[in-house]
C-alpha cells in the first residue's frame, strides 16, 4: 500500500540501499535491490517545463527491496518496500510497503 513517508536510508558504495528506518524501526535489506523507475506528476508541481529543461522531470529512481527489522527493533514486520529518491526532496521516501501487518490493517 502507498505510504509516502520520509525515511532515512543507508546506502552502499554503489548507492543502493542497505538499511533504512521507518517509524522508529530499522530494517535491513535482505535481497538484491531491484531498481525501477516511477514518475513524477510534474503538472502538480511548480516545475518549469520549457523545452530542454525537463530531462529530470519524469523519472524517479526506486529500489524495491525485501527487508526485515533488526532483531532489537521490536514491532516491525518482514516485507517488501519501495524506496524512492524524489528530486524535489532532500532525502528518501518510503513509497510503498507490503507487510502482513499492513495487509491485516487493510482488511480489518
Amino acid at each position: 500500500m502507498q505510504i509516502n513517508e520520509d525515511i532515512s536510508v543507508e546506502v552502499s558504495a554503489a548507492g543502493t540501499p542497505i538499511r533504512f528506518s521507518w517509524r522508529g524501526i530499522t530494517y535491513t535489506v535482505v535481497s538484491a535491490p531491484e531498481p525501477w523507475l516511477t514518475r513524477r506528476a510534474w503538472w502538480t508541481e511548480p516545475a518549469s517545463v520549457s523545452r530542454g529543461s525537463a530531462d529530470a522531470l519524469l523519472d524517479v529512481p526506486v529500489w524495491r527491496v525485501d527487508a526485515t527489522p533488526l532483531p532489537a527493533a521490536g514491532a516491525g514486520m518482514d516485507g517488501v518496500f519501495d524506496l524512492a529518491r524524489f528530486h524535489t526532496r532532500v532525502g528518501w521516501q518510503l513509497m510503498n510497503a507490503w507487510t502482513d501487518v499492513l495487509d491485516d490493517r487493510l482488511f480489518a
Partner: protein
Amino acid sequence: MPSFTHLRVASAFSAHYGTGRPEALVAAANAMGMRAASITDRDGLYGAVRHIRACLAVGMAPIVGTTLRLSEKDGSPAGKITILAHGHTQGRGWACLARSITSAHSFASRRSGAIVALRRDRIARLLRGPDGISVTVLLGPDSDVGINLARGNNAAASQALQWWMSTLPGAIRIEVVCHFTEPGQPASMRHAVSLLELAHAHDVPAVLSNAVRYLVPDDALTGDVLDAAGELRPLGSFDGQPNGQAWLKPAGAMHQIAVAIVRRSSLEQAAAHRLLAETERVAATCTLDPENDIGWQQAKIPENDVIGLTGDPNRVLRETAEAAISERYPYADAALLRRVRERMHDELTTIYGFGFSSYFLTVADVSALIRRMGIRNQARGSGAGSVINYLLRISNVDPLEHDLLFERFLGNKRETLPDIDIDVESARRHEIYRAIFDRYGSTRVSLMAMQNTYRARGAARDAGLALGLADDQIDFVAKNIWRFNARDFRSALEVKPELREFAHLVEREIKLEQLVDITERLDRLPRHVSMHPCGVILGNNELYNLSPMQPSGMGLPMSQYDKDDIDDVGLLKLDVLGVRMQSTLAYTVQEIQRVHGPQAADAGKLPADAPYVKPNGFVELDSIPHDDEPTFELIRTAHTLGMFQIESPGQRELIGKMQPDEYNDLIADISLFRPGPMKGNMVAPFLDAKHGFVPPDYLHQRFRYFLQDSYGVVIYHEHVLRILHECMGVTLAEADELRRSMEKKTDSIEAAFRGRTAANIDPATGKRKFSDRDIENIWAVLRGFGSFGFCKAHGAAFALPTYQSAWLKAHYPAEFLAGILTHDPGMYPRRLLLAEARRMGVPILPVDVMISDDNYRVERTTNGTLGIRLSIRDIHGMSEAECRRLLAERPYSGLVDLYERAKPSRTLFQRLALVGALDELAAHESEALNSVRGVPTRGDVVMRVRQLTASKRPVHDPENQLDFSIDHSHLIPRGNAEFSTAERVAAEMSILNLDVSAHLLERYRPLLDELGVTPANELLNQWNRTEVLVAGVRIATQTPPMRSGKRVVFISLDDGTGCSDSTFFEEAQNATGPLLFGTRLLVIRGRTRRTGERGISIEAERAWDLQELWRQYRARHSPDIAEPVSVEA
C-alpha cells in the same frame, strides 16, 4: 563501437503519441553511429516516405513497419503487433504492410466506435503470400503474448505464441523491451525476462527494442501532453506513460539492457549476445531497397488502355496537339503558326525524353472529363508555360501570348512528374472526384492525405486541457493568440500589446507558465490526418500495394501519403482545387443567360455581334478579349470588391497606385503583391517607369524584348532564365537549374556567370556582347532578385479569373454581385457585398418566401432596373429539409397554408415573419380586406405568426372538412406598429447576419455627426496628412510581412460609403491595446496618407470601441435613445 538497430520507433506521425520527426530521428540514429533506422508508426505509413528519404540522404539502411492493434472477430482487443516489411522482395513485403494497414482501417467506424485494428482472422490471408512470408512480426510487451505474461498467465501466453508460430511460421520474433517500470508491469525488467524466457522455451528468436516514442528524455514530457490530448482528459485523470524511458537510446545503453535482462534470467550469458545478434539479423532482412521495393521515384500512372490509348503515346500526343492548333489559334498568321509548331516540337522532344507522353494524355483526359461535365476548369501554376498544355486544353493560357517559358515548367533534369493543378468550381468538386474514380477505377485512384499540425491556438487548447485549466481560462488564452508561431509564444508575450494582460497573469501563475511552455513544445507536431482539400492521386493497378488507404470524410478511400510523399513514390498527384470564384463565374454566366437570353450582349453593353456571346445568351468567358477598356476603367477606380485576388486592402492600395491599363499589368500586379517583391522593393521602380517618371531601364539592349512586359523591372523567373540564357549562352533549361540553385550556390554561380558572360563574343562583330560594367549591373540585379521573383506562368494563370471577374463586374454588375453573394468567394463578409451593391445602385430586394430562391437571384424591379433578391438560405438556423420544403411547396395561399404545408419550425416561422419574408404573402392573403382594414404591417404579421405558433399546429385540411367556422382568429390582426428601420436592421442582423434595410452604422449617426467623422468616399478629397476620424464595421485585419520585419496591423472599416484602410504602427498598437483585434465597430483617429492617384490610407494614432463611445454619448444626451443593434465580434 557496439552496433544496435532500433526496430520499433514511432515518429511524430503517430499522432498523439510520438514526438520526433522522422528526419530528426534518423539524424540522431546516424549521429549515434547506427547502421540502420526503422520507423513503425501507429496505424500507418504516414511518416514512412520521409523516413526513407532521410535515410537515403545520410546513407542509412531504411526499415519500415507499423504497429497495429489487433482485434478478435467480435471486435474485442487482442493486443498490438509490429509488422516489418522485408526488403529486396520486389515490393512483396511492402504490399503486405500496406494491405494490412488498409484492412485495419476498413473495420474502423466512427459510428459504431470500432477502432483501427487488424482482425485476427485476416492475418493469415494478409501476411502469407504465394511466395512465402515477406514480413517479420514482432510480439512485444503489448502483444497478446506479452499481456498474458504480465498478468502471470503463462499458459495463455504460450498458447498465444503457438498460434502465431503456426499461423506465420518463421516470421515471428519476440520483442523484448525493458523500460524499468514497476516490477511485474509491462516493460518492466521482470516482464522482459519472462518474455525472453518464453521465447527461449518455444525456440522463437527474440529481438531487443526500446519501443521508442521520443528522441531524448526531455521529450517524454511532450509525450505526457500528447497522451492527454489523445485521451481528451487532463493529466492525472488517466493512466499515462509509466515513466520516461521510451527514448532513442544509444547502442551502448541498449547492450547494457540486454546484459541486465539476461543476468536476471535463467539463461546463460550468451543469450544476451544472441538477442542483440538476432536484432541485427532482422534489421538486415528488413532493410528496404527503395527502388526495388517501392519503385522509388518511378512514375506509376494509369495503364494506357485505361485512358483509352492505343499505340505509341508519343505519336498520340503529337497528333492530338497538332489537330488542336487550328482550334486554339484560329486567326493565326503564318509567322505565328510557325512559332507554335516550333514551340510544340521543342516541348515534345523534352516530353518524349522523359517518357511523360502518357502523363500529359492522362491529365488531358481528366480535364476533358471535367469539361464534359460542363464544369469550369483552369490549370494553375507553371503548367501554363506549356503550349502542349494549351493545345490539350489542360490550360487556357496561351504561353506565346504572354511570353511564358516551357523550361520553367519542365526542364532537362527533372525526374519526377511535373505538377499540374486544376482549379474547378468549388460547388461541384466532389462530383469531379467521383467521376475520376469511375473513369479510372477505384483500384487506381485515391484521395490524398494532409497532415494537420499544431498551431498556436490548437496547441494552447490542448495544453490547457492537459493541465486541467478551466474552460474559460483556456478560451481566454486561445482567443488572444493571434498569428504567431507557438514556438515563439514566450517572445510574443514580451512584445505584443494585446497579450499584455495575459503576460502579467503568466508571471503570477505557474500553471499558465507551464501552458506557455507546453504550447511551444506542441508547435508543428502532426495533430491529425485529414483529407487534402484538393489532392487526387492517380496510380496504376498496383496502387493498393503501394499505399495504405483509409476512409475519408467524403466516403472515398484516402491514401496515407501526403503531398510531400507523392513524388518519391512515383504517383501522379492532381490538384483539383475547388475555387469559389470559378463557381461564382459559372453562376454569373448562368444568371446572364437566364435573365437576358438573346439580349445578353445588349444588356452587357457589348457589341451585338460579339463572337463570345452565343445567340442563346451564353457568355464564353474563356474567349473574351483581354483589352476591354471598361474593365480596366473599373479596376482603376480601385472598387475591386469581388474581383479575384485584387480586392484585399493591400491590393486596393496597389491597384490605386498602379492604375493598370493592360492585361500584362494585372499579371505584374499579382506577381508584385507578394512578400518577396514587396521586401525586394520591386514595386516602386515598376510604378515609376509605368507612369513615365523615369524611362524604363532594360539593363542591356539585348534584354529589351523580354523586359518590356514589366517596364524593365526583373520580376519573373522567366526574366532570369532569359537573362542567364543571353549572358552565359546556356540553354533555358540549364538557366532554370542555375536559377533554382542561385540562393544556395551564389558564389559558384557568380563566378560562372562572370566568366561565361565576359567570354560571350558576338560572332558578327567579334566583340564581347557584355562589357564589364554591364556584367556588374546585371549581376547586381540577379543577386538582388534572389528568391523573390515569381513565375510569370503562375501570374498569367492567376490573372485570368481576376480579369474575367472584373469583366463581369464591369458589364453585368447585378448578375456578378448575385454570383459573389451566392458563392462567397472572397475575404469579406456578405454584408460588405450588400454594401457594395447599395453603393453601385443595385437594389436589394428583401427575402420573400414567395419569390426568394436558395441562391441570390437577379430580378427585374418594377422600374426595370436589375436588383438582387436575397436568398432564403441565409436565414439563421434553417435546416436543409426546411429549406427544401419551403421552396417545393410554393405557392402559398396564406400564412396558415405555409405553416401547414412547408412545416417550418416555430422559431423559423417567427424568424421569417421578423425578417419580412412573409410581408408579401400576408398582403396577398388578405387582399380582399386590405382596402377596408389596410395592408398588414410587419407588426401585424409577427403578431399573427405568434398566435399561430402559440397554439397547436393546425392539421392540413384542404377541403375544410373539419368545418372551422370562419372567425377573426383566422385573420391577420391589424393595428400593430410598423417596424422602424432600426428594428428591421436588428432583425436582419440577427436572422440573416446582413444589414439589408440600412447600413449598421446609421444607428450611430448622431454620434458620428457630433464627432465629425469623415465618410470613406470623401477621404480622397482630403489633403495629405490631414487629421481625420473614420468609423465603421471592421471587415479585414491583416498583419502582412514588412520590409523592416516589424509588425504592422492593417484594419479596414466599411461605413456604407466604401472602405477606409488604416495602418497601425507600433505606437498606435500600444495606444489601442486589446481593441486591436477583438472589437468590431471602431472609430479610428489618424492622418491621411496619399499613396497614388486613387490611393489613400490612414496612418492611425488610436482607435476606440464605437459602442463604448455610444454608451457615453447616450449617458450625456438622452438616456431614452434605444439600445442599438448589438454586434458581437
